[in-house]
């Protein structure tokens, strides 16, 4: 089994707000992130896939295909978007780094053919990242 990690960057804005909470609860729980006009981050995404090396190609996964899937399924949908308003997953779920990692996993996992998705890591800043391994 060999693991391969591909890195990508995207920029997006978001805010944290749960309509079931009172305005006070929203402010207390989400702090500055509750500002309804949103704020942005430069996210770094690391996608790790795993698989056996194909004896003919020497690849775990065709990196060109992986890049295409990543661009189509994730970056085109998220880059330079207001996550709450433009990305369907976040019409109902709060676009935290946790939920972003889960959403990216759910977008990628069904599209990968030869290799298997191992981990999605999303850096919101250099000091904060979330890993999702597909655990329920």
């Amino acid at each position, binding site marked *: 089994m060999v693991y391969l990690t591909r890195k990508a960057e995207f920029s997006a804005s978001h805010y*944290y707000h749960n309509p079931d909470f009172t305005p006070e609860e929203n402010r207390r729980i989400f702090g500055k992130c509750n500002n309804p006009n949103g704020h942005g981050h430069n996210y770094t995404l690391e996608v790790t896939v795993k698989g056996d090396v194909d004896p003919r190609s020497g690849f775990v996964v065709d990196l060109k295909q992986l890049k295409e899937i990543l661009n189509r399924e994730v970056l085109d949908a998220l880059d330079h978007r207001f996550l709450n308003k433009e990305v369907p997953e976040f019409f109902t779920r709060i676009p935290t*780094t946790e939920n972003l990692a889960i959403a990216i996993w759910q977008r990628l996992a069904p599209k990968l053919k030869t290799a298997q998705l191992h981990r999605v890591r999303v850096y919101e800043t250099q000091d904060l990242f979330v890993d999702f391994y597909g655990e329920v």
Partner: protein
Amino acid sequence: MKAHLTRRYMFSASHRLHSEAMSAEENHSTYGKCNNPHGHGHNYALEVTVSGPVDEHTGMICNLVDLDNFVDREILERFDHQNLNTLSEFSGEVPTTENLCASIYEIVQEGFRHARLEKVRLEETMMNSFEYAGGAEIWR
């Protein structure tokens, strides 16, 4: 759904690696420059990884404010700008980064209640880093 969250913190501290159980020669050959009696310092980078189900109402494993407050109070207040050899944690133990990493793990493990601690990672320099997950293997 279960996710893992890692938060990175910085602190600076000094230490001297010296074991009472060893002779002067042995200390010198074991610890080299780190045995200098006056000590020396590092900028440590600490990564704390916690895990748990993502709360459907908040979208979070735990509130980052709770984690930051805990680490500020229990770790950074205790170790930042200190001489590690003078602290009670290291009265019977050499303040290597291995031992510091394990001490930090124990403090977070015992005191932080908002999520499950997975591991602590400590960078002593850009070249050396240490990870500790209690008794558990680190396979991620």
